[in-house]
Every structure is written in structure tokens, then in C-alpha cells.
């Protein structure tokens, strides 16, 4: 199993009740899963825990055989570099690097950069004509495609996408999702997509719904 989440509980100092209250689920390679729920239901928190961006209070998060709970900062950083790829709602591109450098960045960090693969991804995501531009020179949809290319160029086993089309209009959003699904399917990675949108969630074969910190 690619991902196993067991009875995870997570709370924050400024909240009275835990954000996540005993979450358990699993994900196999090649699986694609939509994680939906109201604002504040704990979707992004769960995504961050599975991506090693945050630590659970209790329970287990096992990614590709590695339990994240006992890992220190360096250990979780290694996981984020090599195993997991996160696509953020706000893109989180590095504004001072060109599109080309942004796409290659995570793969170079992970030590498995492949220029041919970068070029292929850029071509399929319609970014070939923008490789020497800087993020600020691109539209929101183009920036999100750069973020997707960056994640996939690093060849992660698990792709986590946090509202990746939240800032885009419907038409661009559909186009981006088509590409994301297609490319993830090709790599055989697992995908968890956090979204508010029923329409986007309906595109994926599996769905988990969070309400007040519990899966329903």
C-alpha cells in the first residue's frame, strides 16, 4: 500500500476540539482520491499530514512503508523531496527563477533531474513558449501548470493537490485537471485531490468526505 493513515488525531493550540478526530484510510499505487468537505473540516490538515508538512498528535501516517510520525525535520524533508509531490493552491513557485528552472527545481533537489522529461512535460502542459519567462509574467492557469510540471518532473510516488484549481475559472480548471489526471495516471503515482468542488470530485474514481474532523 502506498499510503496508510491510521486513527490520526490532530489539534491546534488555538482550537477547542481536534481538527482531525481518528482518521483512517489507505491508498494504493495508481489510486486517485478526492478529499472533500466544508471549510474548516480538516481537508488541508489531512493533506499536510500525509505530505510530511505537519505532524499528527497521534496515530500513524505511513507513506511508501515509512512511518512519518517519528521523523524529524530532516527526515520529513527527505520524504517531501523524493516521495511526495505537493501542488499548492497558491502555486508556490519561486518568483526569481524562470519557468524552466522552476520545473526542474524539485527534481534537481531530489537528484533525479531529466531535461528530456522536463521538455516533454512543458510541451504537454503548453509551456514551451514560456520557459524563459518568470512566474509573474504568466497567467494564473499557466502558473498552476508550471506547479504541476514541477511536481511531476520530480517523479513522486504520491501526488497531493490542495485545491489546485481554486484560483482558476471553470474552463481553465477543467483543462488543468485533465492534464493532471492524465500525467499522474502515466506515472502510476497515487493522487489525493483536496477540493470544494463537487464537479471536480466527481471526476475521480474514489471520494472521501470530511465533516468536523471525521470521515463520513
Amino acid at each position, binding site marked *: 500500500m502506498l499510503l496508510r493513515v491510521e486513527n490520526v488525531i490532530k489539534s491546534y493550540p488555538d482550537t477547542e476540539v481536534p481538527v482531525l478526530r481518528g482518521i483512517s484510510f489507505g491508498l494504493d499505487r495508481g489510486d486517485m482520491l478526492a478529499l472533500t468537505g466544508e471549510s474548516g473540516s480538516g481537508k488541508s490538515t489531512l493533506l*499536510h499530514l500525509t505530505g510530511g*508538512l*505537519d505532524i499528527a498528535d497521534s496515530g500513524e501516517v505511513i507513506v511508501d512503508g515509512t512511518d512519518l510520525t517519528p521523523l524529524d*525535520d*530532516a527526515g520529513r*524533508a*527527505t*520524504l*517531501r*523531496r*523524493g516521495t511526495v509531490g*505537493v501542488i*499548492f493552491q*497558491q*502555486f*508556490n*513557485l*519561486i*518568483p*526569481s*527563477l524562470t519557468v524552466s*528552472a522552476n520545473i526542474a*527545481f*524539485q527534481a*534537481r*533537489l*531530489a*537528484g533525479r533531474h531529466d531535461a528530456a522529461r522536463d521538455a516533454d512535460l512543458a510541451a504537454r502542459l503548453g509551456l514551451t513558449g514560456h520557459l524563459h519567462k*518568470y512566474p509573474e509574467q504568466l*497567467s*494564473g492557469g499557466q*502558473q498552476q501548470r508550471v506547479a504541476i510540471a514541477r511536481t511531476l518532473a520530480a517523479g513522486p510516488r504520491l501526488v497531493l493537490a490542495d485545491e489546485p484549481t481554486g*484560483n*482558476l*475559472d471553470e474552463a481553465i480548471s477543467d483543462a488543468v485537471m485533465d492534464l493532471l489526471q492524465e500525467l499522474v495516471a502515466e506515472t502510476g503515482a497515487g493522487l489525493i485531490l483536496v477540493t470544494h468542488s463537487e464537479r471536480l470530485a466527481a471526476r475521480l474514481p474514489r471520494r472521501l468526505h470530511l465533516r468536523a474532523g471525521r470521515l463520513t
Partner: protein
Amino acid sequence: MSRVILSALLSHWQRNPLQLITLLAGLALATALWSGVQAINAEARASYDAAAATLGEGRYAQITARDGGAMSQDTYVALRRAGWAVSPVIEGRIGDVRLVGLEPLTAPGGLGPVRAGGGADLGAFLSGAGQIFARAGTLARLPDVTAERVTAPDVAPNTALTDIGVAQRLLDRPGQIDRLIVLADQPLTRTPLEQVAPGLIRSAPQEGGDVARLTDSFHLNLTAFGLLSFAVGLFIVQGAIGLAFEQRRPMVRTLRALGVPLRRLIALMAAELAVLALIAGGIGVALGYGIAAALLPDVAATLRGLYGADVAGQLSLRPVWWLSGLGIALGGTALAASGALWSLAHMPLLSGAQPRALMMARSGVGQATIAALLLVLSGALALWGEGLLAGFAMLGALLIGGALALPPLLGLVLRWAEGPARSATAEWFWADTRQQVPGLSLALMALLLAMAANVGVSTMVSSFRLTFTGFLDQRLASELYVRAEDTAQADVIRAVARDHADAILPLLSVDRRVAGMPTEIYAARDHATYRDNWQFLRAVTDPWDRLARGEGVLVNEQMYRRAGLGLGSEVVIAPGARLPVLGIHGDYGNPIGQVIVTEPLFRDLYPEVTALRFGLRSAPDQVAALRRALAEAGLPQAAMTDQAALKAMSLAVFERTFTVTTALNVLTLAVAGFAILMSLLTLAAMRLPQLAPVWALGVTRRSLARLDLLRALVLAALTATLALPLGLALAWALLAVVNVEAFGWRLPMYLFPLDYLRLTVLALGAAGLAALWPAWRLSRLPPAQLLGVFRNER
């Protein structure tokens, strides 16, 4: 991986060169300020030393022929061989110019135009035809002589200095010496003078040497202001680094989210900063010395002049100056960056960028609390602290507390100003100004410290000047001081003075213990010399009249403080002689107590003491004739000191410290102005979301630019207003607390309102100039950029 991370970190600077320039400029300017102030301080010290050294010849004991005539050079050689550390001097006249021949290898420091170890000038001074040092006017009056003429503005008027061999040749007195200066440190094993040269006598040092203690105090205060300039620099570095980190926070978050380990990231950022600090430090050291040299145009003349060798060495940027400058840059950067790196290390990976104003507001309460605590601590140390360490701790607490208190105080004042505002624009202006304070706070703190330093330096240097001149007027009021070897020679002096001088003031004193401390009891003749020149720290009405009637005594400050005396307190100066204190006078060079009584009373109490030293009053143009008459009567030149000329000379040299003050003003305010400029430029981009709605609501870009300019002036004016009391408090702390702890006497503090006004205008000018470019850019901002704020799509 490190290379990938570094490429991302460095790409930020490539894309944002202005931010890199801001950081480098901040670091370089802080270093420049430090190294520049060190150079300026060195110059100030040298100026002051020169002023003191002009009086210095009298500080040394002298050996002369018993009959007042010349001695043989062989006698000098014999004395040196017998272990005496002495230096020969020959004097004479060429035309109407006084020619003094010195031996630079043995002359005490500060007396000659060049010194041993001073470099190439020494060779030229000694070799061949030799060199003659004098003021330009004096050189012009010199008859045709075979020696190179060198202009030296620091040599006393109508005096020319040269090597003793050259002087012997020009005066046609080969192998002759007039006197020998006895250096302070003498070997204990030397043969007694009577055995080596029975025809010579040794005379004691004269008045005027006490200036050295005043000099020590001046040096201490300049050192304190050197540290203050470092604090100004530190705030600028803190501002530059804080902004650089603030700007890269999103990138840091992204890098960490993409799997960059925190430790590696922090280490690489620290290494990056260290490299930048070294580059900026190198630029800063060179810049600092360049600025110092440019601001002190007479430095070049000084190099070839009185004490040039040492200063020339410093300005040639010796390795120690480079290293200390780079050390300051690295240390200051480490100190300033430690907080930013700590905050970065503890930044939650998932935290959104908190609004800057909110963060600042949260930390603002803590900052105000720390500021209040530091100011209370400073007050407590001023009241109850003891020792030099407590004095400096008080100074530090006052400085940091004052700087930290600035943003909360500005917030309060701006909130108060917002109240009466009626128009919408005015309301927005004050609210927006308040919102800008956190972003500008470090630059404003730097301006506050820069202004406070300037107010403090101006006050300190001017107070020193007044004290120095007052002290000289008090102690060296007579035009000529003469010293007799015995009562017969004293009678000769009195006889000559009756015909050639306006007044003769016997200098009578005796050492006794008074009020439990070693004390010099000194007789004052009832004469205008004392009444006109002596200044009291505290006195009863008509102190001189009452002193002349024998109704009391005057005591110096040291005795007043240490013996806990006050006006009216009675002191016992001799058995049965108990007299009240009529006045307390400043006596800055004297380590012991002093009691002044009227001359008749002194003679009654100590009839065994006879006057062998005299101050002779004369019209300045009659001094030369008086001197000639005394010489003709058999008094050796070494027994006569033209203190008035020396005093005028030392004051002229001391005036250079004002050039130093101006240089310091220009330097610190320019640096603070640059810090404001950089902050404004950096904030300009961040401010667009605040300005765009106001622009959209109908305020033109030109109006917004004008308001921005006005905002900078308002903030600078408020900062200047708060800097004045802080600067005065600093000067007071140095003069009245640190100085007392270090030397046991307090320097009077004088206020110079016009200087402060000029400084305020300068500070407003610096802030206005700094705001001009950002305001101009704002007035020309393309509307598309403002509209970009409203775009939904990023």
C-alpha cells in the same frame, strides 16, 4: 543539493537587484560609519593632542647652564652616556623668526614636526639641507636659507622648527645647545647630574601640564561616541537584513515545502550573509576612510605637518583597520541576523504570511515594555549606580531604550494627530502614516540614534571647548611666565618687571593636608587677572572681594566633591586658621585638592615660602621686549614661557575639532538618510495594495506622492523632536556620570540651541531627499500596476 538551494537563493538577488543593493549598502554604510568615525575620532584626538602638546614643552623638566648661557654638545653626549634620557634644543632668531632646533629621534612625542618611526619625512628632515617647518606666513618672512621649506599650519606663530644640526648651521652656532628636555621616564641607575655636569641645573616642569587629564577625558568621550556610531550602524544593518529576510519568507517556505532541510537552509543563508558582509565590509572600510578624508580637508596638510606620520599610517588602510572593519561588519551582521535566522528557524512551515502590521503590532507591546524597562534601568543606574561599568551600562540602557521607545511613541503621537483630522484625505494620511511606522521603524531608529549622537557630540565637543578655553584663560592668563632659581634672581625679575611689565603676579603655593586630603594651598594676589578669568561652579556673592578681605577661601571641585564641602563650609588650612568656602572652581587637570587664599593671608600663614615663579602681565606687543629685557638681565630663555602665544596656538588647533563635528554630522545623517531611502524604496512595492484603493477613489498619483513626501518629513520631524532630549541625555550621561566615574570631576554641560536647530534642518533635509525619489516614482507609476492589485487572477 546545496548548489540547487543556493541557485534559488541567489536568483532572488538577480531578480531583485535593488534589494541586494539595499542589503549591501546597509552593511557597507554601517561599516563605513564605524570606520569613518574611527578615522574622524583619530583626527579629533590628534587635534586635541596637538592643542595640548603645544603647551607640552612646559610639561617636561629641563636642564640648562647655571649661568643661563649655552652648553656644549659634548655635555649632551656625556649625559646620554651617563644614562640620562634627555633631548637637546637650540633656539635663536633668523630675522624676526624664532628658530627652534630639535632632535627628532629623542624629542618627546608631540613636540617635533616629525617623529622617529614616522616614515620618509624623518629622513628628509635629518638629511642634506634639511627641512624647516613653519606656518606659511612665517616661512614667507624667513630670510634666504638653504633648507627645504615645509608649510605646517600647526607650528606656533612666528616660530620655525627644524633639526638641531640644521639650526646650529643656520644660527652659526656649531656644537652648541641651549637646553635639554628631560623626558618623563628616566633610568634609575643614571649618574647624578652634579657628577656628570656640575655647571648645569635641572628645573621643574611648569604649569599647563594638567591639560593631559582633560585630554584623557576627551578621548574617553570620543570612544563612547564611536560605540554610539556602531549602534547606529547596527540598526541600519538590522533594518537591511530584516527587510531582506522579510522579502524572502515566501521563498523560504516554498523551499522547505519542496523538501529542503531547515538546517541546511539556515546554514546556507548564514554563509550567504557572511559572504555579503565581507564584500560590503570591504567596501565600507574603504568608503569610511574615503569619506573621512574628504570631510577633513586639512588631513592632507596634517600628514606633512606636526603629527602626520601616524595619521598617514591610519589613512593608508593598514591591515588592522581592514580587519577591524571586516570584523565589525561580520559581527554586526551576525548580531543583526541572529534574530532573523532564529525567527526563520521557528517559522511554521504552513503558516500563511501574517500581515506585517499585525505582527508588528503584536511585537510592539513587547517592544514598548522592554523600552520602558531599559529607560527605568538607565535612570536607576544614573541615581544609584557606582563605577565606570555602571556608567556605560546606563549609557547602553538609555540608548537602546530610547531607540526601542521610538515606534510606540510615534504610534501614540500619530493616533493623537488623527483625532482632530476632518477631511477624508487627512484622516487617511494619519492612519496610513501610523501603518507605515512598523516598516520604517528600524530606519527611523537609526535616524533617532544618528541625531542623538550628533546632538550629543555637538554638546560634548562644544562644552569641552568652552571648558578648555575657560581652563586655559584661568590657568594661563599671564602673557609671560618666568621662573627664578633663587631669591636673588627673583629680585632681578621683579626689578625688570617693574619697568617693562604691567603687573607682576607671584605664584606662591605650599602643599599641606586639608580636610583629610593632600592639598595645594595657593596664594592669589588681588588683581583683575583672577577676577576676570576664573570661573566658579558655585560661589557666594562677591567672592573675590571677600577673599581679598581674608574672609574665606576658594576650593577646587575635587576637594568640594571628595570632602563633601559646600558654600559656607569651614576648612582648616593651618592651625588656628578656619575659614569658610566662598567659591568652588573647576580644576580639571589636578588630581589633588586646592585651596586658594589671598596673598597677605598666605604670607602670614607661611612666611617661610618665597616666590620664585611669577606671572607677568603685559600688552601682547610688549612681550618680546619684556623677554629681551629679562634675558639681558641674565634670565635664561628656558626660564621664560610665552604662554599666551602657546595658548592662542592650542586654541587654533582645537578649532579643528569643529570640522570633526561637522564631518560627523554629515556622515551619520547621510547614512541615516540612506537607510530611510532604502526602506521607502523597499516598502514602495509592498504599499501598492494600500495605495491602489485610495487612487481608485479619486486621489491622484501626484497627490499620493506629495503625501508620501510629507509623511517622510512628518516622521523625521517627530523623530528629531524625540532625538533632542535623547542626545542631551547622552551628553549629560557622558559629561556628568561617565566622566565623574572615570576621573572624579564633572565637566560642565552647555546648551547650543542654534546647533540643534541646524541639525534638525539637516535631518529633515536628509529625510526629504530620501523620500524624493520614491515619491517621484509613485507619481509616475503606470495605472496598470495599480490596477493589477484589483485583478482577481494572479
